[in-house]
């Protein structure tokens, strides 16, 4: 037996762990007590993270139309089908779980081989609103503080983020801040575990009314002169615009729209503005709305207004939810960004033509995630499962079935892979070497600890071989992840100073930007200036807009979707982990007992939830944690897929679908079974 260090593959809290390995198999997870982030502690997902590795369902051989074949056959077919495709008709969907090296190669393949900017990853569904909201205000859609510094905050606003279930590692740090006297304000329509465990003040807005509430807070801070004049004068522009935008605001109207009592909003505004170090953490509860980007602009406005940004433990911080949730974006798996957030355009294209020694790189923005699904004839999906994660699964299935050629590269036969013409078996987690960049821009290294099953290959190897088959061996002459990382250092200035050697020695990774080998990394962003053209923070006003689909007589309930602590995203890994399915193997519909009573539904009975897009039979879980008229369902379960119900309406600024609000009706299934 031997102990090998690893980082948890799940939520991006980045917990360290030891894997106990014997004869090429991982036998268990053991505490890594010296790891600064989690001190040996893990949640139930982490403790069982090794179990999917040698699950019998692992893909072991390439499949063409369901039949096993050799790598050469499969890749030759894919190369043949990809060759000569019109760039606009080709689309790539990437992942937040692949390594930085793999994500980097995936976008390079799309751009340099397929000459298309149609490359996206799952962040479209979690933080596209962040990019659209923080871009104009502070210039960068990233977490600004190190998670280790969160206990320096004396007021934390948790906006639409259920940290206690979805980021248990970070929740612990917030708890410690609270023990030192920090006040925690939670914005959530539900009474989540976060509210129960961490909340000092719970603002429970009606779904999708965050913008009204946040404008109210801005107005209250201004009315009471609680804003930070010095900071505003020195480091921001656009204050007057913000001021005039809330001048007309009627606070009684804010209370009416949001359903939150004004004194509570006043209290929240006062403690945040009065804090020494105020910190906003937010996630999908506030981004997954047609007004998602506006919500984020208003959060940024709040931080700029009070000066709670640019110091350790402050900022307006998006919580990316995958081990490389940040990294795949850094690497340019985004239709509008080349690596290092170089915005797509002629100048950027020329820059990368030089770096990569290629020609004709695309200079126009590509299609975004849902447009790729809906309109590309050929789709290459890597480590991504839109059949479970995209809104309106029935529509997604129709679109993918209608595509001419679908290649899925994954570790299991996911619901999306089942629709594929070609399935390519990839390696997982500690079956290959590479780096990941998690929530707080922390670059960490993963070592190869065990061999992959069967003929599964690293994603970088597959992409490289495919590029070679398509005649691009010169630009894709890689034989190791290390070699790819060296190229990343040359192409992504934020990573220039990070090397495998440094990462192997670092206690818990290195925060980008890290411009040179002797640079310690940057735990805190924007200490001097923002990432905007003039270096200032820009106040950008935004008005409240209601959600796209609200309840009516036919569909009288609001449905909101989300996650639970026992599972991870589309369930392809956690759904194959006995300890986790033993806790929860199917979804539930959380419903207020008063509503259930009206409908004649008892706890645990099966109901039929129907939206304008489809229906799901799911067990009711009666709970006062959701208000009347509101329901919640986790989206991890293929047998009870919440996204059959969700709405495809999106935020026009970023094409973020409104997962958090759609209208449903609920009936008791026959006999409740």
């Amino acid at each position, binding site marked *: *037996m*031997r*102990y090998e260090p690893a980082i948890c593959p799940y939520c991006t809290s980045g917990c360290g762990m*030891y894997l*106990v390995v*014997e004869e090429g198999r991982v*036998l*268990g997870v*053991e*505490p890594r*007590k*010296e*790891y*600064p982030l989690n*001190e*040996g*502690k*893990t*949640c*139930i997902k*982490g*403790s069982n993270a090794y179990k999917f590795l040698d699950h019998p369902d692992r893909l072991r051989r390439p499949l063409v139309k369901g039949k096993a074949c050799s790598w050469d056959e499969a890749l030759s077919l894919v190369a043949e089908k990809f060759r000569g495709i019109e760039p606009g008709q080709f689309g790539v969907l990437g992942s937040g779980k692949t390594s930085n090296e793999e994500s980097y190669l995936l976008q390079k393949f799309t751009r340099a081989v397929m000459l298309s900017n149609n490359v996206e990853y799952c962040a479209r569904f979690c933080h596209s609103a962040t990019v659209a909201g923080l871009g104009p205000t502070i210039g960068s859609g990233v977490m600004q503080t190190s998670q280790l510094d969160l206990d320096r905050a004396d007021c934390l606003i948790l906006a639409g983020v259920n940290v*206690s*279930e979805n980021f*248990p590692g970070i929740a*612990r740090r917030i*708890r*410690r801040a609270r023990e030192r006297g920090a006040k925690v304000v939670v914005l959530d329509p539900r009474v989540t*575990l976060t509210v*129960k*465990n961490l909340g000092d003040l719970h603002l429970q807005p009606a779904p999708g009314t965050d913008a009204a509430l946040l404008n109210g807070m801005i107005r209250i801070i201004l009315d009471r002169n609680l804003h930070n004049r010095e900071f505003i004068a020195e480091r921001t522009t656009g204050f007057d615009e913000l001021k005039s935008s809330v001048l007309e605001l009627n606070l009684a109207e804010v209370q009416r729209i949001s359903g939150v009592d004004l004194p509570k909003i006043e209290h929240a505004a006062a403690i945040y503005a009065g804090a020494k170090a105020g910190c906003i953490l937010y996630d999908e509860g506030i981004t997954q709305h047609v007004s998602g980007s506006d919500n984020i602009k208003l959060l940024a406005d709040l931080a700029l207004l009070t000066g709670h940004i640019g110091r350790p433990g402050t900022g307006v911080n998006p919580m990316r939810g995958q081990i490389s949730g940040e990294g795949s974006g850094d690497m340019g798996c985004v239709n509008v960004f080349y690596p290092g957030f170089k915005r797509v355009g002629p100048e950027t294209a020329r820059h990368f033509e030089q770096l990569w020694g290629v020609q004709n790189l695309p200079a126009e923005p590509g299609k975004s995630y849902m447009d790729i699904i809906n309109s590309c004839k050929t789709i290459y999906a890597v480590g991504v499962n839109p059949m479970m994660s995209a809104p309106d699964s029935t529509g997604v299935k129709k679109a993918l079935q209608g595509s001419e050629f679908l290649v899925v590269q994954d570790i299991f036969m996911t619901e999306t892979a089942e629709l594929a013409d070609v399935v390519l078996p990839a390696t997982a987690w500690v079956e290959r070497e590479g780096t990941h960049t998690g929530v707080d821009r922390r670059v960490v290294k993963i070592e190869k600890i065990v061999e992959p099953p069967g003929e599964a290959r690293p994603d970088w190897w597959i992409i490289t071989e495919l590029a070679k088959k398509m005649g691009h061996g010169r630009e894709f002459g890689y034989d190791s992840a290390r070699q790819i990382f060296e190229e990343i250092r040359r192409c992504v200035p934020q990573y220039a100073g990070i090397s495998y050697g440094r990462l192997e*020695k670092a*206690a818990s990774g290195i925060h980008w930007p890290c411009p040179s080998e002797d640079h310690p990394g940057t735990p805190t962003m924007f200490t001097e200036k923002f990432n905007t053209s003039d270096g200032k923070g820009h106040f950008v006003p935004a008005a409240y807009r209601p959600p796209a689909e609200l309840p009516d007589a036919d569909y009288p309930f609001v449905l909101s979707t989300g996650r*639970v*602590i*026992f599972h991870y995203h589309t369930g392809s890994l956690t759904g194959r982990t006995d*300890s986790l399915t*033993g*806790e*929860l193997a199917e979804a*539930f519909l959380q419903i207020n007992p008063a509503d259930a009573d009206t409908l004649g539904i008892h706890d645990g009975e099966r109901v039929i939830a129907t939206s304008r897009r489809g229906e799901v039979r799911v067990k009711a879980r009666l709970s006062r944690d959701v208000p009347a008229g509101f329901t919640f369902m986790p989206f991890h379960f293929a047998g009870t897929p919440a996204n059959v119900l969700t709405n495809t309406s999106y935020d026009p600024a970023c094409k973020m679908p409104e997962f958090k609000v759609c209208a449903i009706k609920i009936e008791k299934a026959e006999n409740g079974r």
Partner: protein
Amino acid sequence: MRKGDLFLGTSTDESFVEKGEHGGVVTSLLAFALRERLVDGVFAVRPGQNRYQGFPVYMTEPEEAVGCAGSYHFLTPSLAKNVKKYLDTHQRRVAVVCKSCDARALVELAKINQINLENILMIGLNCSGTLAPVPHIQMLSKMGIDPYLLEWEDIEGNNLVLRFKDGEQRVFNLDELEEQGLGRRANCRRCEHPVPRMADLACGKWGLEPGTGGTTVIEVCSDKGKQLLERAAAVRIVELQRPTEEQTKRREREERDKVDSALSRQAEDFARPEEKFYWFSQMDRCIKCYSCRDVCPLCHCKRCVLEREDPQTVEKGVVPPPFTFGTIRLMHVAAYCVNCGQCEDVCSADIPLSRLAHNLSKVASSLFDYHPGVDPDAPLPYSDIPEEERRSQSPELAKPS
């Protein structure tokens, strides 16, 4: 040589003397046991990149033993649990380097047939307590000291002494540290077994004049320990001499001080008036990670009652779980808990679990007059019903004879 005898030992192997903390005796004995095939392997903690990192390793070559030499206060994996989980001691004979919490857990595990104690040689280390690494890494960083330059640390009397690679030495008063939540782990502060007499040998520095290097004080605790020491001494792997009376007395005093301080800490920890309400609110934070169970050296059920489907003991798929989730587990180990502190170390919700578990085990201890891990021959509390109790009409439990 007899059980209870005390020796001053030194190693004759220069390379071990240099690496070993107090004379390289432990390392020499391990290498000797391997070389002479007295054991198939040695199980110990090997340090990693720095003083805070270390992991259990199973070694079969005598030369490997030197890699584990030294005394590390920040390395706290449960060797006992690792032995149970990853080494089949029914198939192989293993020397385990253990602190008293490991040794006591091994003794208990043998009683429930999880390991074969006959195949285990316990080389015990006296222990004045261990420290959680991260809080001290952070403390040093905040003081502007690079924590990763730490070269050596020790607990001397009531002080934590840290020596750094740049030659600097820092001394911290443990009471002061512990008041800020630093210093020794809470369970260590309550530990009344600083000398692991349930092991085969108990090795340490207590009794020596301060500053004495090159020597280890060895107490013979079992026949197995006696045989090993005799054989090693016969071929002059270690040289033994009797301690002076003064040294013996000093060792007794140092041990008694540790025990006294542990007992008064127990009294303090277990006598808080707010306890009942306190524990309810603590357990409310549980996120059902099962880490307390997973890491407990004594939890051993193949099918854990906490996960049972039919009938369901604890409601599934909800957090926080019902209060019973924590209490069922605690009750299952109450009679055997050895206060190793692992459950508290890994608790995702920062619940001070070992305080509760240790408290319960003390209650069980007083009911059954059973002291977990101390005597391999003492029958488990529920397994032995004294004759007088069988005949008794009183509801009170009789003490086992």
